[in-house]
């Protein structure tokens, strides 16, 4: 049973529809990956789930509640956390302050969560007093990831988390994503590195021009000759 579901979503940024009946779902303790060619509407689908664009048709539900009409902020308060692809840290604030801002809505103690984030990304503990803008790309990505985790989310959404980082850092990040999944969080991500991402995915969606073209477990999609041929380069 999926926890976050977008059904039959249609919509775009005012002009022609970018999403044309796409459906995405992710369950808790599961990783779902959206892959597809450029311009397929992968990021747009994720933004639709987050409420950052208005749907003309279709609905979004979280844990069985219809959240289609909620603003992004209201959805964040309901447990959705989003890591944008770019500009995903507060560059003038220290690493610790970035994490604190992630926990802005929380009134309970945040030290425990921060400790977990520091355990997940030891480099952040080391650099906690440094402005996030002075960190390397991979480290920034970890700050962004950590900030999202600080909200104590039930769903973690990542927009191309490995864009522009080295293969080693990418493996590292995917490892952390698996750890987060194992804590019972639903993880949804959009990825350019389709092969690697599907390798760790419990569920995969191949989007083409705003529609679901293929869906299945990560292993199924990787084994499917049609998917291999058209999207994974043979």
């Amino acid at each position, binding site marked *: 049973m999926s926890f976050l579901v977008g059904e039959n979503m249609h919509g775009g940024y005012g002009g022609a529809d970018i999403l044309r009946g796409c459906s995405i779902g992710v369950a808790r303790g599961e990783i779902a990956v959206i892959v597809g060619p450029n311009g397929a509407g992968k990021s747009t689908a994720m933004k639709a789930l987050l409420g950052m664009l208005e749907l003309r048709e279709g609905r979004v539900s979280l844990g069985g509640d219809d959240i289609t009409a909620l603003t*992004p*902020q209201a959805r*964040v*308060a309901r447990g959705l*956390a*989003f890591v*944008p692809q770019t*500009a*995903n*840290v*507060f*560059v*003038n*604030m220290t690493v610790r*302050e970035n994490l*604190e*801002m*992630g926990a*802005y*809505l929380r009134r309970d103690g945040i030290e425990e969560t921060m400790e977990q984030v520091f355990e997940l990304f030891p480099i952040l503990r080391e650099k906690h007093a440094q402005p996030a803008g002075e960190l390397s790309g991979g480290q920034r990505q970890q700050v962004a990831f950590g*900030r999202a985790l600080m*909200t104590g989310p039930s769903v973690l959404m990542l927009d191309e988390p490995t864009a522009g980082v080295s293969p080693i850092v990418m493996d590292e990040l995917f490892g952390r994503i698996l750890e987060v999944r194992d804590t019972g969080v639903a993880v949804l991500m959009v990825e350019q590195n389709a092969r690697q991402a599907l390798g760790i995915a419990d569920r995969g969606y191949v989007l083409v021009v705003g529609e679901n073209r293929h869906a299945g477990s990560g292993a199924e999609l990787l084994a499917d000759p049609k998917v291999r041929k058209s999207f994974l380069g043979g």
Partner: protein
Amino acid sequence: MTDLLNALILLANFVLVPALSYGSQLALGALGITLVYGVLRFSNFAHGDTMAFGAMATMLATWWLQSAGVGIAPLPTALLALPFGIAATALLCIGFDRAVYRYYRRRSSPPVVFVIASVGVMFMVNGIVRFVIGPDDRQFADGARFIMRARDFKEYTGLSEGLTIKVSQGMTIVIAAALVAALFWFLQRTRTGKAMRAFADNEELALLSGIDPGRVVMVTWTLVAALAAIAGTLYGLDKSFKPFTYFQLLLPMFAAAIVGGIGQPAGAIAGGFVIAFSEVTVTYAYKKFFAYLLPAAWEPQGLMQLLSTDYKFAVSFIILVVVLLVRPTGIFRGRTL
């Protein structure tokens, strides 16, 4: 030796003390401008007149307190009236935000639209101030005038040059320092202050973190209003209150904010002092200073003044242009305009 001391006291009296207090006033004004720029993302041309409004509100409360016989001599009564001035200015700023800026924020208008809207707000505030209190020069300082008189200083030290420190100057420097410390503490240490910085840093990510933009805007205007009312009142106590001079302060204040790096609070303070010291040193007549230091035969004939005080605004303007050409981010690497 005495000549050297006299020369230094002369400089302290006519350059150091006035520039320190003027610099503090500019720094407080520039802080308000930089906060609006950093958080609300536009250059607020109404800031000078907002300061005039704050000073006016404080003045009205001062008169009322004086008529009721309440005072805190030797300090000026205006200090006691300041909370009233701040509250009135905060209402004005939040009122204009609701009536004008919020509309453009909702429409996500480009910054230039906000700038032009702020020019409109400037004319309106300007009108309100002149309507309520008139365009004339007014004095509202009472209590003691001097911390240190020239005559007392001369008697005490035996030098022929005196050092004067007015109560208003001492008060300006002390209050500005305390206010800046409090503002930095607020921005660096409190949850709301950090949320403001986060919003200024990356608006979208701040929203994704659940920061309420409406609240950030309200808090920002309240801080800006407090800074404006205090800066306006201190300037009015130190010089005199005249609505037009506050409009003229806009140029040196913007220059201070940009020189320091707009959007950076520390830059606004540094910029305030850079502008104030440049203005005062360039327009001071050094004749007497050199007369002390040079042999009698070399005493300068002219005033030894680089620029007449009538041209003091040219100083901020030149600094502004040079900074924009050479280092547009300013001293503290603020944003480029």
